[in-house]
């Protein structure tokens, strides 16, 4: 039973696709909100994000979503899924917008892909990293259940996560550099790609999240 899933809405862009993918994946109830009561009483929490990090961080702090997220993470029975800029916001600091301090929930940097970016053969790579790339799973995690290693997920971003504690890496991906596609710690799972836009593999990951008890 998925129970109630709260999608934290801090006003940065459209969250309908996340909500509708969660519903499609089997969520019994999805609430898109920044209301403290809604998020506190939810059984699961999704922390999404699109747009520029400076504006995201400003809204997260203004709406006190940082505290709501910290409370959710402190409740080890409440699974939390962070997506894209939501994952980046968890880190210590981002290079975007001239340097922005982030939530520092997971120690690490959010770095720019660099310009020019080249692959192993010296071919130029476009930025943003936009499209379907192979995700290399690291270790076992309930959220990878039924998803073959190296399945492609949809990415769209110009900055990538580089966590300090390498033991937290749940998946990596290569685009000119190797970077963290997923991080896992306790009841938190964070992904750089967009499961809500990754067709059957993405829906499967969301279904796994809905069935997850928050334990690794």
């Amino acid at each position, binding site marked *: 039973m998925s129970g109630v899933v709260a999608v934290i809405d801090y006003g940065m*862009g*459209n969250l*309908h*696709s996340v909500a*509708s*993918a969660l519903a*499609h994946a089997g969520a019994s109830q999805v609430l898109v909100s920044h209301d403290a009561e809604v998020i506190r009483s939810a059984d699961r929490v999704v922390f999404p994000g*699109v*747009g*520029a990090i400076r504006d995201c961080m400003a809204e997260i702090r203004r709406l006190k979503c940082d505290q709501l997220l910290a409370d959710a993470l402190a409740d080890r029975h409440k699974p939390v899924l962070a997506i894209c800029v939501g994952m980046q916001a968890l880190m210590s600091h981002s290079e975007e917008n001239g340097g922005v301090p982030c939530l520092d929930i997971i120690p690490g940097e959010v770095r720019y892909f660099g*310009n*020019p970016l080249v*692959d192993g053969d010296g071919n130029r*790579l*476009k*930025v*943003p*990293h*936009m*499209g*379907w*790339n*192979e995700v290399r799973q690291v270790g076992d995690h309930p959220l990878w259940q039924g998803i073959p290693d*190296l399945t*492609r997920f*949809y*990415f*769209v*971003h*110009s900055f990538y996560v580089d966590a300090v504690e390498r033991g937290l890496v749940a998946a990596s991906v*290569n*685009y000119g550099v190797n970077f963290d596609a997923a991080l896992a710690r306790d009841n938190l799972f964070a992904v750089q790609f*967009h499961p*809500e*836009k*990754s*067709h059957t593999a*993405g*829906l499967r990951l969301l279904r796994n999240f809905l069935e997850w008890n928050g334990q690794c």
Partner: protein
Amino acid sequence: MGLAKRIIPCLDVENGRVVKGVNFVDIRDAGDPVEIAIRYNEQGADEITFLDITASHEGRDTTVHTVEKIAEEVFIPLTVGGGIRSVQDIRTMLNAGADKVSINTAAIHNPELVRESAERFGSQCIVVAIDAKRVADVDGKPRWEIFTHGGRKPTGIDAVAWAVRMAELGAGEILLTSMDRDGTKNGFELGVTRAITDAVEIPVIASGGVGTLDHLVDGILLGGADAVLAASIFHFGEFTVPEAKAYMAARGIEVRL
């Protein structure tokens, strides 16, 4: 192995129906956009582009409704373009469920719209559509100019320089359509495709003129495009998306199978 080249079926929609013209004139009906989008999603399309060619205001409401219905059923990226003139239009389409919005003529009239919308919504959702047409060579070098009104009205703007400027203003992607080729099934205009992909750091989608699977291959291997967009070869059942992907993979192109 790494990032896959994308195949993007395009729905040209007029008054709620998918149509596809030859050089933007001769319109054929290809069906219901929601049904067609679901079909491409199931076939493994990497994204879907929805271009609204409806002229009337009443038709715009139909479009928003159609985008909402597609977004409820299709869990791959959806780009919506056609008639986008303001930040409010962009917001409306994003709220309806579009992941990216394509700006064309409005960017020509008001380039700041690209900057403003990229700052507000993020570059990742701002696509600038460029309709280019070959014009007289300058100093023996080929030149392409931006045309509006379905390729009838020249603007005098150099297509390559324009693409560079749009990227500087914050566009996350370029959708390049060759107006000489659109609807002709003679293949992409590879000269302008290559010139623009070489000139910008952001991804480029090649569009206009696909008639065979070799055209898709050429767009990637010769044109240097990051994604290829086609309409009629998919709508009228000549090829499926999996057939196109298998063909490209057999020619060494990395695709999502």
